[in-house]
């Protein structure tokens, strides 16, 4: 309605055709699907945290105040392994640092005012970002973000409490397969993002980087290292575009491709087929 749907002032802003409309009901359905599914997995966190020796209050405080699943799991894991509080917090923080990039991306998409931002910031996580970024315009992005955030925050905290209370009754939670819930959630969020060769190359390279560095670097750091896949792939792609554009001058200036280049090249050829 009175929302400013166009805040950019770049010269080409006038040109793009309006994105296809998406009914609100479809947005709400998607948002609820993600919010409920992931919100329920707070149960796994509650059980894990209680199993790691944290008290009920401590477990619930993590879900209420940290509210970024991977960081929470990393923190209780590190504390259970006997890590000192600052090392444990550093690992959790490294994992949570990715939310800054989601926020960076979302600030333009959601366009919230300064007064709303401190509240909205708390809900910026993988899932709310994925839902919001999948929407065609600002209004539906806000709707998706709000419904996902509200559902997920409520359920995540509720099921954390239930999980922490019921941890003793469940026994070995791994036997119930609950540790597979988190990676399955990440796969489901990632799949729709793999639209073309550049994205697939970044994902592939990130997987290689994290698996290679996992045994070598402290908790939380490998995931951050794997983030380098994004600039690396963009660098290779930019080089190829320049080489294609300005001929041999640029290609001669660029030495042989770096090791990461191979995954990118392989994926790019896959894209040509698709």
């Amino acid at each position, binding site marked *: 309605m009175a929302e400013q749907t166009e805040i950019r002032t770049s010269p080409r802003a006038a040109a793009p055709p309006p994105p296809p409309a998406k009914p609100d009901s479809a947005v709400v359905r998607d948002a609820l699907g993600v919010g409920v599914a992931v919100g329920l997995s707070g149960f796994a966190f509650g059980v894990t945290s209680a199993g790691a020796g944290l008290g009920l209050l401590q477990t619930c405080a993590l879900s209420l105040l940290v509210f970024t699943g991977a960081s929470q799991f990393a923190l209780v894991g590190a504390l259970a392994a006997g890590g000192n*509080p600052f090392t444990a917090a550093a690992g959790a*923080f490294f*994992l949570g*640092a*990715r939310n800054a990039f989601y926020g960076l991306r979302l600030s333009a998409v959601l366009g919230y005012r300064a007064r709303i931002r401190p509240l909205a910031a708390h809900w910026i996580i993988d899932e709310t970002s994925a839902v919001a970024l999948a929407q065609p315009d600002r209004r539906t992005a806000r709707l998706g973000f709000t419904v996902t955030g509200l559902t997920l925050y409520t359920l995540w905290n509720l099921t954390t409490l239930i999980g922490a209370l019921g941890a003793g009754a469940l026994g070995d939670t791994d036997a119930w397969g609950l540790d597979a819930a988190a990676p*399955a959630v990440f796969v489901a969020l*990632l799949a729709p993002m793999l639209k073309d060769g550049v994205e697939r190359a970044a994902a592939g390279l990130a997987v290689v980087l994290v698996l290679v560095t996992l045994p070598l670097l402290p908790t939380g750091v490998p995931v951050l290292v794997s983030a380098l896949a994004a600039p690396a792939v963009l660098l290779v792609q930019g080089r190829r575009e320049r080489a294609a554009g300005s001929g041999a001058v640029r290609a001669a200036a660029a030495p042989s491709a770096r090791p990461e280049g191979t995954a990118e090249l392989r994926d790019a050829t896959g894209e040509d087929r698709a």
Partner: protein
Amino acid sequence: MTVWIAIAVTAAGCYLVKYLGLSAPAGVLERPLVKRLAALLPVALLAALTAQQTFGDGPHLVLDAKAAGVAAAALALALRAPFLLVIGVAVAVTAGVRALGM
């Protein structure tokens, strides 16, 4: 007490990065490179998190029932299963494989 310190530091740090990202000046986002990077970083991070949580056990790499569960989830996704079902399949297959003692 040390646990509470860890919780407080983590909560403050995690909130701060969220807020800083959301409040970055609009000018930063105008640059095409930043836009492309911001779009690609979540892809890289989600892929890495998936791999870490599937094959990582602390600092060790493992191939256990979880991998079967996540593979089943990917298959369910390819068959266009709804979100909750995808997670359910992963949990059920992982539990099933463990029950079989593999």
